[in-house]
């Protein structure tokens, strides 16, 4: 089975010399629900632009279902449906016209295109507006129009660049349901987002991009597993004995600070019991909170450039192991 998307060593330097992508590798399996997560200006839209041939790449390889965009561009394009970040339809055309024309560019006959337009406009709750010109739609409707447009040729992979930007919570949820349904039907879905909740709710695999570099490329489960762990910082009394914890991943930061990872399945009482037995006196305890958001900030906000905070290194794929024990 081919991967839906395979990117190797992709680089982009824009005119004027700005290096937006510094050599990224990315693999998305067929049938996957994949998130590309990153802050503003990370290079998400640039990556998507290159995949959909709206941006010329500087170096690297991109293949869609095994078809290299340098060698079989048109074939590669025919697999993809794109929902871009910014509205890019003719504001003066009616919804139906926009959809039917778009289908035509992919070789879908008008009659069939009209049937599909009806189907998707109804599913996306835009059927009443079908004859309005697109500029009369609200922001959320425009976004749904672009989703309908991307589906007109029944693509195998749907790429959405921040589909829920500017969309209210209720609509966001119904959009999620819609995307889940599509994914169940076998369509590979790749979306970019700033919303961590969104990636967490929807996606099976994830890549985190920052400054044109992929800082993390893993499955959602192991990413969340790392988050299943809560880290506590214990301030120990000066001059006490050296602490040693079995069954916990702990790090002695200095002679009076201990960091302990506690899984949701473990009890913090255990930590205290052991420490008490060893005669280690805990003066105070802080929670080093460790939600995805934290991770994200850590990974992207200068995390790549040598953050001394060793406790939360996620550039390797390991989840903290119990055996790792003391040091």
């Amino acid at each position, binding site marked *: 089975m081919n991967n839906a998307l395979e990117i190797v060593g992709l680089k982009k330097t824009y005119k004027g010399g700005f290096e937006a992508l510094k050599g990224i590798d990315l693999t998305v399996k067929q049938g996957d629900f994949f998130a590309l997560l990153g802050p503003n200006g990370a290079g998400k839209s640039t990556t998507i632009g290159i995949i959909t041939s709206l941006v010329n790449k500087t170096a690297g390889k991109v293949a869609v279902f095994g078809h290299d965009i340098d060698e079989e561009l048109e074939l590669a*394009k025919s697999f993809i449906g794109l929902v871009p970040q910014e509205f890019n339809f003719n504001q003066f055309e009616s919804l139906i016209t926009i959809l039917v024309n778009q289908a035509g560019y*992919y070789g879908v006959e008008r009659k069939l295109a009209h049937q599909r337009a009806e189907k998707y406009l109804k599913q996306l709750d835009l059927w009443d507006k079908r004859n309005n010109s697109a500029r009369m739609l609200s922001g959320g409707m425009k976004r749904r129009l672009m989703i309908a447009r991307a589906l007109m040729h029944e693509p195998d992979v749907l790429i959405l660049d921040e589909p829920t930007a500017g969309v209210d919570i209720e609509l966001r949820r119904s959009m999620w349901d819609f995307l889940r349904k599509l994914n169940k039907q076998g369509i590979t879905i790749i979306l970019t987002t700033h919303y961590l909740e969104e990636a967490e709710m929807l996606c099976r695999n994830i890549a985190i991009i920052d400054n044109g570099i992929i800082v993390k490329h893993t499955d959602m489960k192991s990413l969340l597993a790392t988050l299943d762990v809560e880290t506590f910082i214990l301030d120990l009394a000066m001059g006490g004995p050296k602490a040693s914890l079995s069954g916990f991943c702990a790090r002695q930061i200095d002679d009076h600070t201990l960091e302990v990872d506690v899984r949701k399945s473990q009890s913090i009482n255990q930590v205290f019991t052991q420490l008490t037995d060893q005669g280690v006196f805990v003066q105070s305890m802080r929670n080093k909170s460790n939600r995805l958001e934290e991770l994200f900030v850590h990974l992207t906000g200068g995390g790549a450039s040598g953050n001394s905070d060793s406790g939360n290194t996620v550039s390797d794929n390991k989840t903290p192991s119990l055996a790792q024990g003391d040091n």
Partner: protein
Amino acid sequence: MSASVNRIALKSILYKEVHRFMRIWVQTLVPPAITISLYFVIFGTLIGARIGQMDGFDYMSYIVPGLIMMSVITNSYSNVASSFFSAKWQRNVEEMLVAPVPNWVIVAGYVGGGMTRGILVGLIVTLISLFFVDIQIHNIWVIMITVCLTSAVFALGGLINAIFANSFDDISIIPTFILTPLTYLGGVFYSISLLPEFWQGVSQLNPIVYMVNAFRYGFLGISDVSLTVAFGVIGIFIVSLFTIAMTLITKGIGLRS
């Protein structure tokens, strides 16, 4: 992609293009009709009567082919220039760029749309001119081939203009400073043979001279230049402009960053 996919894509672009200028017909089809009527009233009825004959025809009959050609040129050009530029501006050109549409289909679709408007306006103008003169036809084939080829040349020109354009001003500069002067000096209103020899030579560098004369030949059977040369020149223009347009779109000039 298969031939049928390309055929449907081409049809879609053509349909979209025709739909666009039909939807705004007040801006696209009515103005040339008004302009041409004014020309007929002023040059034909009022001034033409004093000019007398040109190459053995009364002035009105002499200028009709040139006037039709003038509308064909302007409309083919501006249709593609404004449509393609506004597609760039609103970014809906991306709808085509992400789809598996070969570049030649995009060029053919837009040029086809421009030609359709040029020829349709030509037809409207011809019908209006019937109110003012009796139109005679010397060779219908020459008329049809000339009008098609000429509209293709200027549709391609409009496309290239739009590819380079960064603002709406950029698509009115070429028509104002190049197209209009060339048309007025292209033998619409006079026979080149009236000019001093030097200016006759200069006029031969003006492609519009060949188009107007070939077209006039189709109606009146007279021409300042040989038909073979005229079609040769038009042919060279089509091939070169098509090549330029294809190269620009393939490189993504003004389209891809």
